C-alpha cells in the first residue's frame, strides 16, 4: 500500500492524442483531500479532455489515474460516480419543462422513490445552505439556480472529488460569491474539488493550489494566493500579456447610433421579449451591454443587426437615418455591421470556404458583385487580407470555416466586419471561447476602430472585458435595459445588482417583495 499521505486524486503521465493533436502530454499532478485545486489554462489547452478522462467520458492513451492512492480504470461516468467522483458541467443538461425533483431523479443511477429523494435533496440543501425549491419548474429558474440543481445532483452521491468545469461563466458576481461559499463548505467537510477556469481572480480567491496547462502540458504549478493575476496569466499564455491601449487621444463626438423605444415580442415559449430599450452611442465610443445569459442579448443583437426587423423605422437610427424597417443588407449598406454570438452556423457557414464566408456579409460593401455575378477573385483577395491582417491561423482562404479553431474563426469574422470600416459595429460576446492572446488582439482592434470614429456596441457576459474596453455601459435583464453607467465610476457591486434584476427603481423592488410574498 501507499505509505505517504494518500492523495485524493493523482495523475501520472496521462497522455491522450487525437488525430493531429496531442491533447494531453504526460500530465501529472496531485490533489490532496479537502483541497480546492485549480486547473488553469486557455481554451484548447487540454483542460476539458483531462477532466473527461477522470470522469470516464474518455480513456487515456497512456498514464495512470489514482484515486486515494489506488490506480483506477474509469470506463464510464457511471463508474466514476460509483468511485465518488462527481462533475458539474459548464453546459447544463436539464429539461426545461420538468421540475427540479424530476430532473434530479432522471440523472440518478439508482432507483428511489420521489418522497425519499425529496427528503435527501432537502437534507443536502440544508447541510450546505443552498436555496432551491424541488417542485419549481426548471424554465422558471435563474441560471444560478439551475447550476445548483447540477451541484445537488452531484452532492447526492456524497462525492470525495467534485469536478467543476467553468462554473462561473454564466453567473452574476453575487451568485459567484454564493457558489464559493458552498464550495468552501464542501472542502471543509473533506471533499476535494478540481476547479477548471481561466478567470484568475476567482482562482486567487478560492483555490489552494493550481496546475497550469498549456498546449496539453503542465507548464507550472503555483499557490494562487502567492501569485498575481498577471503572473498567472503570463504562465497560462506563455508570454507577456498585452495591455489594451485605450488611446487617450480618442475624441467622443455626437450621437452616432441611437436606439429609441425598441420593443420586440419574444419568439416561442422560452424567448425573451425586448421591452422599451433606449440608448445612444457617440462617435468613437464603445458602449457595453452586460447581463446574465438569456436575458434578451440574442434578441437585441437580432433586432440591431436587422435580422429581425422593427415595426417602426425610428427605433434604430444611424447618424439620424431611420433603419428600423430595413433588413441586414440595407443596414450594412448604411454602415451598420454586426457579429453574432454563435460563430458556426450564424456568423459563418462551417462547410463553406473562408472566401465564401467573406462573400456572406462583405459582398456589397466590398464591391464583389456586378449585375448579380460574384467576382470570386475580389472575394478571395479580401479573405486573404483578413487572414493576414488579423493573423488568422489557417492553410488559406480555401479552408472551410469549420476547420478553424474557435479563436481563429472569431478573428476572421471580426476582421471581416472591422475591415469593412462600419460606421456602427454591434458585437456579441467578441471573445467568447477565445484564448487570452487572441482576445487581447480583438479588443485592440475594437478600440482602434472606435479611434477611427465608429460607434461600437459590445454585448458581453464577461464583465472584465466590458470594464477594460468600454466608455459607458448598461445592463440588460429580462429584456429591459438598466440606466447607463460611466465605466470609470461604476463598481462591480452596482453592476452585479443590476444583473441580478434590482433596478434601483422603487416600483420594481416592491414588485419583487410582493412576488416573494406570493411565493
Amino acid at each position, binding site marked *: 500500500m501507499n505509505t505517504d499521505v494518500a492523495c485524493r486524486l493523482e495523475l501520472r503521465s496521462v497522455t491522450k492524442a487525437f488525430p493531429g493533436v496531442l491533447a494531453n502530454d504526460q500530465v501529472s499532478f496531485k490533489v490532496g483531500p479537502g483541497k480546492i485545486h485549480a486547473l488553469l489554462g486557455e481554451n484548447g489547452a487540454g483542460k476539458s479532455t483531462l477532466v473527461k478522462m477522470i470522469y470516464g467520458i474518455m480513456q487515456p492513451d497512456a498514464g495512470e489515474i489514482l484515486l486515494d492512492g489506488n490506480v483506477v480504470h474509469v470506463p464510464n461516468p457511471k463508474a466514476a460516480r460509483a468511485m465518488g467522483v462527481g462533475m458539474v458541467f459548464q453546459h447544463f443538461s436539464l429539461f426545461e419543462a420538468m421540475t427540479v425533483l424530476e430532473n434530479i431523479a432522471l440523472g440518478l443511477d439508482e432507483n428511489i422513490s420521489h418522497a425519499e429523494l425529496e427528503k435527501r435533496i432537502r437534507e443536502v440543501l440544508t447541510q450546505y445552505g443552498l436555496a432551491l425549491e424541488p417542485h419549481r419548474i426548471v424554465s422558471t429558474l435563474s441560471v444560478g439556480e439551475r447550476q445548483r440543481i447540477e451541484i445537488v445532483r452531484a452532492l447526492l452521491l456524497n462525492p470525495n472529488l467534485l469536478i467543476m468545469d467553468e462554473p462561473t461563466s454564466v453567473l452574476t458576481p453575487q451568485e459567484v460569491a454564493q457558489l464559493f461559499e458552498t464550495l468552501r463548505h464542501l472542502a471543509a467537510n473533506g471533499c476535494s474539488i478540481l476547479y477548471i477556469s481561466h478567470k484568475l481572480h476567482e482562482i486567487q480567491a478560492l483555490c489552494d493550489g493550481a496546475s497550469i496547462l498549456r498546449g496539453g502540458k503542465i507548464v507550472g504549478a503555483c499557490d494562487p494566493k502567492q501569485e498575481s493575476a498577471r503572473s498567472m496569466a503570463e504562465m497560462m499564455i506563455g508570454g507577456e500579456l498585452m495591455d489594451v491601449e485605450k488611446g487617450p487621444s480618442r475624441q467622443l463626438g455626437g450621437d452616432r447610433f441611437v436606439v429609441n423605444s425598441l420593443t420586440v415580442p419574444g419568439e416561442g415559449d422560452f424567448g425573451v421579449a425586448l421591452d422599451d430599450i433606449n440608448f445612444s452611442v457617440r462617435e468613437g465610443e464603445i458602449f457595453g451591454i452586460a447581463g446574465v445569459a438569456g436575458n434578451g442579448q440574442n434578441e437585441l443583437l437580432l433586432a440591431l443587426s436587422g*435580422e429581425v426587423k422593427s415595426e417602426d423605422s425610428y427605433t434604430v437610427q444611424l447618424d439620424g437615418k431611420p433603419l428600423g424597417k430595413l433588413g441586414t443588407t440595407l443596414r450594412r449598406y448604411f454602415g451598420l455591421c454586426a457579429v453574432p454570438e*454563435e460563430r458556426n452556423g450564424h456568423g459563418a*457557414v462551417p462547410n*463553406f470556404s473562408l472566401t465564401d464566408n467573406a462573400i456572406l456579409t462583405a459582398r456589397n460593401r466590398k464591391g464583389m458583385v456586378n449585375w448579380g455575378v460574384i467576382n470570386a477573385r475580389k472575394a478571395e483577395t479580401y479573405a486573404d487580407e483578413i487572414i493576414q491582417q488579423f493573423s488568422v491561423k489557417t492553410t488559406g482562404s480555401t479552408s472551410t470555416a469549420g476547420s478553424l479553431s474557435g479563436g481563429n474563426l472569431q478573428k476572421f469574422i471580426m476582421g471581416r466586419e472591422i475591415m469593412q470600416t462600419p460606421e456602427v459595429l454591434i458585437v456579441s460576446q467578441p471573445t467568447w471561447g477565445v484564448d487570452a492572446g487572441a482576445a487581447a488582439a480583438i479588443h485592440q482592434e475594437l478600440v482602434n476602430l472606435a479611434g477611427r470614429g465608429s460607434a461600437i456596441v459590445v454585448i458581453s457576459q464577461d464583465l472584465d472585458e466590458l470594464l477594460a474596453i468600454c466608455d459607458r455601459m448598461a445592463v440588460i435583464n429580462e429584456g429591459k435595459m438598466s440606466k447607463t453607467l460611466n465605466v470609470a465610476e461604476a463598481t462591480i457591486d452596482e453592476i452585479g445588482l443590476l444583473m441580478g434584476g434590482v433596478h434601483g427603481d422603487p416600483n420594481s423592488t416592491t414588485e419583487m417583495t410582493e412576488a416573494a410574498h406570493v411565493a
Partner: protein
Amino acid sequence: MLLELEARKEPSRSMLYLTPVIAVLLTMVFGAVIFTLLGYNGLAAVREIFITPAIDIGRWPDLGIKAAPLILIATGLSIGFRANVWNIGAEGQYIFGALAGTGVALLTWDMEGVWILPLMCLAGIVGGMLYAAIPALLKIKLEVNEILSSLMMTYVAVQLLYYLMRGPWMDPEGFNFPQTRLFSDSQLMPEIGDTFVHIGVPLAFIIALIAWFTMSKTVFGFQVRVVGAAPHAARYGGFNKNRTVLLSMLAGGGLAGLAGVFEAAGPFGQMVPQFPTGYGFTAIIVAFLGRLHPIGIMLAGVILAISYVGGEIAQTTLGLPNAAAGLFQAMMLFFLLATDILVKYRLRFGSAAPGGAK
C-alpha cells in the same frame, strides 16, 4: 484487426468525386452477383446494361434522348436540394408541365407558325412552376413537409392526365383510344439532321451549363447554397429563407415542366396515358450521383440513360425482367449514400488506442 472510422479534419475533395464512381462500380459487382444467384448470367447482364449501350455508337442518339429529360429535371431538383428543399414530386411537375404544353398544342392544332413550339415550352415551364408552387407555399405558410406534399401531388397529376385522356382531350378521330391528337409539325421538336435526336437534347446540356454558372458564380446561387447550409447565417447575410425556398422550388418545377414538353413534343408526339415513365423519380438519383453539380449531373444523366437503354437490350438478349434496370438504378443510389461517409471520414485499419484496449 479493427476497421475504424476516423473523422477527417476537412471533407475530402477527392472522395467527393470518387464516391460516385465507387458506387457505380459496386453496383456492377453486386448486380453481377445478384443476377448470378437468380440463375441468370450475371456478368453478361452487367455487360449488356452498362457496357453495350456505351460502346455501340448506334445507341448514342437513344442515350441522348433518354439523358435529356433526366438532366433537365435533375438540374432543377439539385437547386432545391442545395437549399435543403426536398422536392420529391418532379414526376408530377413533369406531367403537369407536359399537360400545359399539350393544352397549348390542342388549342393551336389547326394553326401553323414558329411561335407555337416556344409557346408550348413556356406553358410547360409555367405549368411546372405552378404545380411546384403548391407544396412550396404549403411549406412556407403552413410548414407542411414538402417531401410528402410534393410526392402526393404526383399522383394527383397522374389522375388528371388519365381524366383528360379519357375525357375532354381525347382525339375525336381516334377510335375512342385514350390519347390526344398527334401534334402537328409546328408543335413537334425539330430533329437534328437526319438523326432522330430532337433539339431538346442539346438544349438540356446547354441549360445544365447555364445552371452551373448560376449556381457557382451568381448571388442567387450563393443564396441557395447558404440557405441550405446554414439558415441562420443566411438570415445574417441578408437572404430571405422563404423566398429562396419558393424560388428554388419554382426552378425545379419549371425545368421538370420543360422536360415534360420536350418529351411530349419529342419522342411521344402526342399525349398518352403511358406518358409518366418515372423520369421525375430517376432524376433524384441523377441529382445525387452528379453531386448536385450541373456538370456531374450531365455525366450521371448519361450513366442512368445507359442503364435504361441497357435494360431494354438485356430484356431482349438475356431475358432479364423489366425491373432489372430499376434495380440497378436503385443500387447506385444506395451505394452512393453508403459510400458518402468516406467524404467526411477515413477508414483506418489497425488496433484500438492502447489505453482503451483491455
